[in-house]
């Protein structure tokens, strides 16, 4: 115990100097969605400069906010699943089911709106719970399971509706999501407040409750979490159930917003929702994932596609831009470790 200054012991015993300059900035950029936020502000400036009508007519900005909030709602469950280290490809199926219940069951069978919500929550949540439990129990990749369940739900919705796409959601549901809707006299559709409210609840849950901490712990290292006496099976079941239920509710609002449904209503939201999660900076099994990031991601994507469409380009080009944005953002900070470093 005389010589304590070998390189190894030195690095362990002497405190490291605090990070400065570039390293600190990099750390900050990884820990908080600061880059995304700056990008969002820049995009808003570009949008206002290119289309000044956004200042004079607040309706246009509200339209963008509503579209972004629907995307954020569809991606809410996916955010939780990605934090857990999984992937839910059944989102499209859940959305289609919710949209079918909202437009078809209400108009054809005369279901009242609360019943429609309840049935959607039960069915989508139930399917999600089964998927989560089975994937955890049998160590199945959620990717394939959710893919199969999504196909079952999409096909099942069409089967139950008997191919009838004519139904419209009832007026009370449409006034919740459509642009003409008002909240307490304000010309803002209630869906915006509903999504913001859900987002705040989710933030409280993730950041302030022990259940939220358990979710992060399970995502980062399931084995360590299990050894810390977290019931990882329960975490998986609940998270996938939430993912299904939230996507189902998103489906109801999407149908109300668009006044109807079709068999492919969920498809754009599956991949765009995943894009919103990734652009926001939530990565698989990461402690830095949160819904705030997803909401910023959804806003960025909505504004980008508005800009693209306003330049006279088609929806196809916005897909290409989405793809490049995903790759660029994830390459910035979502990189995995080299095999050499895990050896």
């Amino acid at each position, binding site marked *: 115990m005389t010589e304590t200054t070998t390189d190894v012991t030195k690095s362990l015993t002497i405190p490291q100097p605090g990070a400065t300059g570039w390293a600190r900035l990099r750390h900050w950029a990884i820990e908080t969605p600061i880059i995304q936020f700056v990008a969002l502000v820049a995009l808003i400036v570009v949008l206002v400069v290119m289309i000044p009508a956004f200042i004079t007519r607040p309706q246009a900005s509200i339209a963008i906010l509503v579209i972004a909030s629907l995307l954020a709602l569809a991606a809410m469950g996916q955010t939780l699943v990605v934090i857990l280290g999984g992937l839910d490809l059944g989102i499209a199926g859940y959305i289609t089911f919710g949209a079918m219940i909202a437009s078809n069951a209400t108009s054809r069978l005369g279901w009242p709106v609360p019943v429609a919500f309840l049935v959607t929550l039960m069915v989508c949540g139930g399917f999600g719970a089964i998927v989560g439990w089975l994937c955890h129990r049998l160590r199945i990749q959620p990717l394939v399971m959710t893919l199969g*369940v999504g196909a079952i739900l999409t*096909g099942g919705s*069409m089967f139950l509706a008997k191919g009838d796409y004519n139904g419209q959601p009832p007026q009370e549901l449409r006034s919740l999501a459509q642009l003409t809707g008002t909240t307490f006299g304000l010309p803002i559709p209630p869906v915006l407040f509903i999504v913001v409210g859900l987002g705040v609840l989710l933030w409280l849950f993730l950041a302030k409750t022990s259940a939220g901490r358990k979710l992060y712990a399970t995502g980062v290292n399931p084995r360590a979490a299990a050894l810390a006496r977290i019931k990882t099976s329960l975490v998986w079941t609940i998270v996938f159930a939430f993912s299904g239920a939230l996507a189902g509710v998103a489906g109801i609002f999407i149908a109300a917003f668009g006044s109807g449904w079709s068999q492919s209503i969920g498809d754009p939201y599956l991949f765009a929702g995943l894009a919103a999660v990734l652009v926001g900076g939530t990565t698989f099994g990461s402690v830095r994932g949160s819904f705030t990031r997803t909401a910023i991601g959804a806003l960025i994507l909505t504004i980008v596609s508005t800009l693209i469409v306003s330049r006279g380009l088609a929806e196809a080009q916005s897909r290409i831009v989405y793809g490049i944005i995903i790759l660029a953002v994830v390459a910035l900070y979502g990189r995995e470790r080299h095999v050499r470093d895990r050896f």
Partner: protein
Amino acid sequence: MNQILRFLQRNSWAFALLLAAVLLAVNLVVSPSFLSADRLAATLATLAPFVLVGFASTPAILSGGIDVSVGPLATFINCLFIAVLLPYGLGDWFVALPILLLAGAAVGTVTGVLIAIVRLHPVVASTGVLFVLVGLSITISRNPVSAPPNWSDGLARSYGWLPGALIPIGVVAIAWFLLRRTAFVSNLLATGESDVSAYGAGVNVTTVRVLAYTFGGLIASVAGIALSALLQSSQSSLATTYALLGLAAAVLGGTSLGGGKGGLLGTFFGALVIYLLQQLLTALGVQPSFVQVAYGLLLVVGVLLGATLLNPRLTRIRT
């Protein structure tokens, strides 16, 4: 009984073969002319894109990753061939074939580089590429373009006794058979099983990974050609369907998503099962929406069986 189970566990392709045989028998009962010689060429031509997209997604899964962009790559090649190369007079087979194969391999290599060198999560990287490919396909051909008479037409009919659709499937199968003689496939399986151990054993993990995606892209371009042969028009809207079908075929064929286990033979039977199920339900006059339910159920049941009954390493399930 135990012996059968052990055989199924040891050969990952055997379960899909069994399922395919049962479905084939049922198909023959429902429509006895199913395998008649004059329908065989058309049947195989419909089957070929399924099988080839399944083949294309297999190497990536074997390497321990996943590539969800092979289906859209196949439809992109289809659009490139019919909506760009043919109208611009580059449609002769000796011009078009190298261009298409090179394009497919190049896109596959880009995906591979993003995954192995930029080290993005495979799902994320291939989703990004999927977006770009779908966007490009729609840009090239917004609406379906029909093709003038061209050489690919022959791949959907028969040359004498030989059904044309067997040519693309056969070429890929032979290429895989030859590759199995090289160290590449062993290294691929080792990397998929445990990249850390493979790295420790001196396998160049990065190169093996990139090559897996390149090979997948190459097969996807063959799938795109087979798709063009079948449709004789450009269909950019099929991208999402094929993105999921390829994965389903590989998984049903016993290829483990964890990597390192499976092969093209299983994928072939997996694609056959999906195709036969679709044919059977159509022949029975079931609604198309129910076909999708059955396809989802098949996928779920296949995965569940693969994880429980057919899993050779199932000793104790974690608690």
